[in-house]
């Protein structure tokens, strides 16, 4: 029993983090002024849930504080307390203390007492609670009637909720001038839309009438827009399509309760109200969950990986067969590969966690930095629903913290500087994430002054990192800040000068199998981008041959591949060859030379040039002996038993059972540039 209790408590604490995150996001919205009413309700519910759980697990201080917070929130909701700048500050304080209290329970690190007392007193005063009305720890009032007396639904409140939608365009829809694509786009604008396509009715090409939509969709939409918006869409297309929707409760324990008499008939009634009458079950969710050991999940992932390799092997074995004679076999193989892909996706999603878990902490960080630097910064977060491996999420916190500190310290100007540059006095920091293929890309965009390249270069020369008189390109100068020990801070500030530099960020991301890039425009700002692999990454790759070795190039980076005509290859005296391509000159990077491969073909006109564009970089022409074909492969780590290798992002096992390396194009191009430069300088000096 005790174990179970501890486990439930663990789950509550995890949930608590999420709730604090929600609360914080709500306060941000309130500060921004947009949709304040919905945000207040969301905040109220988050705090209420924390109170319920804390009470149930005997977490006195947390319950106590949440109670005072909730009481104050109630007054804000009813408009009996003013919602002004002071109120927003108080709310932020409250959220910070909630977080500290949750950490106190989890890690035993006591929350700062002074801050707790001050915030508690302020909330009690603002909430109209007698300061003397201080309940003893754990004695928070959980009288269900008292809670019931607080109508949690403010009436027509605009909390986001889930809708399941079935959308089947009829045969006349496109002809009637309504493209089903537009309907989906409209839905996407309403909120977070997840799309499940049913393409089973797609006829053969010869039978296809392009004007008859053969697709149908099952959609899930999370929106605050309410039922009206969906009604409107249905009315518009009612006669040419089937458009059915129903509300789904994301976290209500019992959907039937939503329809219970006496509850708000409004479709937008907030469904996630915690069961106030059952404080002992704060962790109830509509979706039941089980706990699984990580090694078990890893085994599952490995087995899925094996399956994909076996499938590739099968595909190689049958490649020589006559497709007409073995139609069934090919079809079955196709189907199997689709199933394996779905299986792999599922296996990946099990370990995934939304980035929100780490992103939600940065609001507090930015506010702290605003105070310590005197600069004003607005943090915008998008894409925090993107999911990535749990272990990666945890390890992202430190590097991202450093990048944000760096952007505010070195990037964003102070108010005077911004005014002089004709910018909004409040700096803008955008933290965004998206999934691209087998990668998750996280970008931190600031609208500050950009990298001062002349100063970076001067510093690098001064430190002997670059020979005097060298003329590196802008991109190369930007790369300098990632060198160990490099820091442009004139004085060691309390903010960034903590002995960890951008090199630590690059290293941390590298250890997770990712890489960091940056682009900067003087006066306009800097963008850092972190590229991270998904845990069970399946990559569509082009298999190439150099010497007797296979090397794999991610398909997404390939622009085209060609066998160059002699006239299009320009030989430079010392820096190798260039390719004239679409009116530009591209560097030809012979992979054989770069990797020291034996017996590679040196003459570019006897080779295949693969034009690649590394994410966020310049295109170049990779010279390989030959192309073998395209294959989906499972990315395996080299670091697990060996280490990171320059120019290589990982390995995979090909159909013949042998490992092959997957090229890491960004570092490949950077390494080549640097090597050419060194060679040139050696030749000159």
């Amino acid at each position: 029993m005790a174990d179970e209790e501890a486990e439930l408590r663990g789950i509550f604490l995890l949930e608590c983090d999420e709730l604090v995150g929600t609360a914080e996001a709500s306060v941000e919205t309130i500060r921004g002024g947009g949709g304040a009413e919905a945000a207040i309700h969301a905040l109220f519910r988050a705090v209420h849930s924390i109170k319920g759980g804390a009470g149930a697990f005997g977490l006195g201080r947390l319950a106590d504080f949440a109670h005072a917070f909730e009481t104050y929130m109630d007054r804000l909701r009813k408009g009996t307390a003013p919602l002004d700048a002071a109120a927003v500050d108080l709310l932020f304080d409250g959220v910070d203390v909630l977080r500290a209290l949750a950490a106190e329970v989890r890690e035993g690190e006591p929350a700062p007492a002074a801050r707790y007392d001050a915030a508690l007193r302020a909330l009690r005063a603002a909430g109209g609670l007698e300061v003397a009305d201080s309940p003893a720890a754990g004695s928070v009032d959980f009288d269900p009637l008292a809670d019931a007396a607080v109508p949690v639904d403010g009436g027509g409140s605009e909390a986001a909720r889930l809708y399941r939608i079935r959308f089947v365009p009829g045969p006349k829809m496109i002809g009637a001038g309504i493209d089903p694509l537009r309907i989906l786009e409209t839905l996407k604008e309403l909120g977070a839309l997840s799309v499940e396509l049913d393409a089973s009715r797609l006829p053969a090409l010869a039978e296809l009438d392009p004007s008859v939509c053969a697709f149908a969709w099952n959609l899930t939409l999370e929106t605050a827009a309410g039922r009206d918006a969906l009604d409107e869409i249905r009315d518009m297309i009612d006669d040419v399509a089937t458009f059915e929707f129903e509300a789904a409760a994301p976290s209500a324990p019992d959907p039937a309760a939503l329809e219970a008499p006496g509850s708000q008939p409004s479709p937008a009634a907030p469904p996630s109200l915690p069961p106030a009458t059952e404080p002992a079950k704060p962790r109830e969710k509509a979706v039941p969950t089980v706990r699984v050991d990580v090694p078990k999940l890893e085994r599952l992932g490995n087995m899925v990986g094996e399956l994909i390799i076996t499938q590739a092997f099968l595909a190689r074995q049958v490649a020589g067969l006559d497709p007409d004679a073995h139609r069934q076999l090919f079809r079955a193989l196709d189907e199997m590969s689709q199933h394996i892909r779905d299986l792999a996706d599922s296996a990946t999603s099990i370990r995934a966690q939304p980035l929100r878990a780490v992103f939600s902490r940065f609001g507090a960080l930015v506010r702290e930095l605003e105070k310590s630097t005197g600069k004003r910064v607005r943090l915008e977060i998008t894409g925090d629903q993107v999911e990535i491996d749990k272990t990666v999420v945890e390890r992202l916190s430190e590097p991202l913290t450093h990048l944000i500190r760096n952007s505010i310290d070195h990037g964003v100007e102070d108010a005077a500087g911004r005014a002089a540059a004709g910018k909004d006095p409040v700096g803008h920091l955008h933290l965004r994430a998206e999934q691209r293929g087998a990668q998750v890309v996280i970008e931190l965009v600031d609208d500050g002054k950009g990298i001062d390249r002349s100063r970076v270069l001067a510093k690098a020369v001064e430190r002997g990192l670059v020979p005097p008189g060298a003329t590196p390109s802008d991109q190369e100068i930007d790369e300098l800040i990632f060198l160990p020990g490099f820091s442009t801070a004139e004085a060691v500030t309390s903010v960034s000068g903590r002995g960890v530099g951008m090199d630590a960020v690059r290293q941390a991301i590298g250890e997770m199998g990712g890489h960091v890039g940056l682009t900067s425009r003087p006066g306009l700002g800097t963008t850092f981008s972190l590229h991270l692999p998904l845990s069970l990454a399946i990559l569509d790759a082009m298999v190439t041959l150099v010497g007797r070795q296979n090397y794999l190039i991610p398909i997404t980076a390939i622009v085209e591949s060609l066998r160059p005509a002699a006239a299009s290859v320009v030989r430079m005296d010392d820096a190798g060859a260039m390719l004239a391509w679409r009116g530009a000159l591209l560097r030809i990077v012979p992979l054989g030379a770069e990797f020291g491969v034996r017996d590679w073909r040196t003459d570019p006109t006897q080779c295949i040039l693969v034009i690649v564009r590394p994410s966020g970089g310049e295109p170049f022409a990779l010279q390989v002996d030959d192309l073998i074909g395209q294959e989906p492969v499972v990315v395996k780590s080299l670091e697990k038993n060996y280490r990171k290798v320059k120019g290589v992002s990982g390995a995979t096992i090909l159909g013949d059972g042998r490992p092959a390396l997957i090229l890491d194009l960004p570092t490949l191009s950077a390494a080549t540039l640097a090597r050419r430069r060194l060679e040139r300088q050696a030749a000159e000096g």
Partner: protein
Amino acid sequence: MDVERLKLAATGELGATIEIKTQLLARLEAGRGAYLDARDVDEPSLALIQTIEAAAAAFAERTLPFGLIEPSDRLCAAYETVGLFAQLMSRIAPDS
């Protein structure tokens, strides 16, 4: 490889889509592959997307090369919207 490049029009309106379907069928019947140059697609439509998908299935069944070359951002976004982003990724062809 006997592959020909077909250029997709900027708009995915029905006329252009039916035209491209006809061209694709001709290639298919001739037993030749096709790469669709999709860099200029500015107004993708569902009609266009389902035509590409049906074509991809048809060429794959005959094991003829088929792919999209440099799909425009708009086309990528539309693929994602209809729930076919993964398929799009597998359709991107090396130029030849």
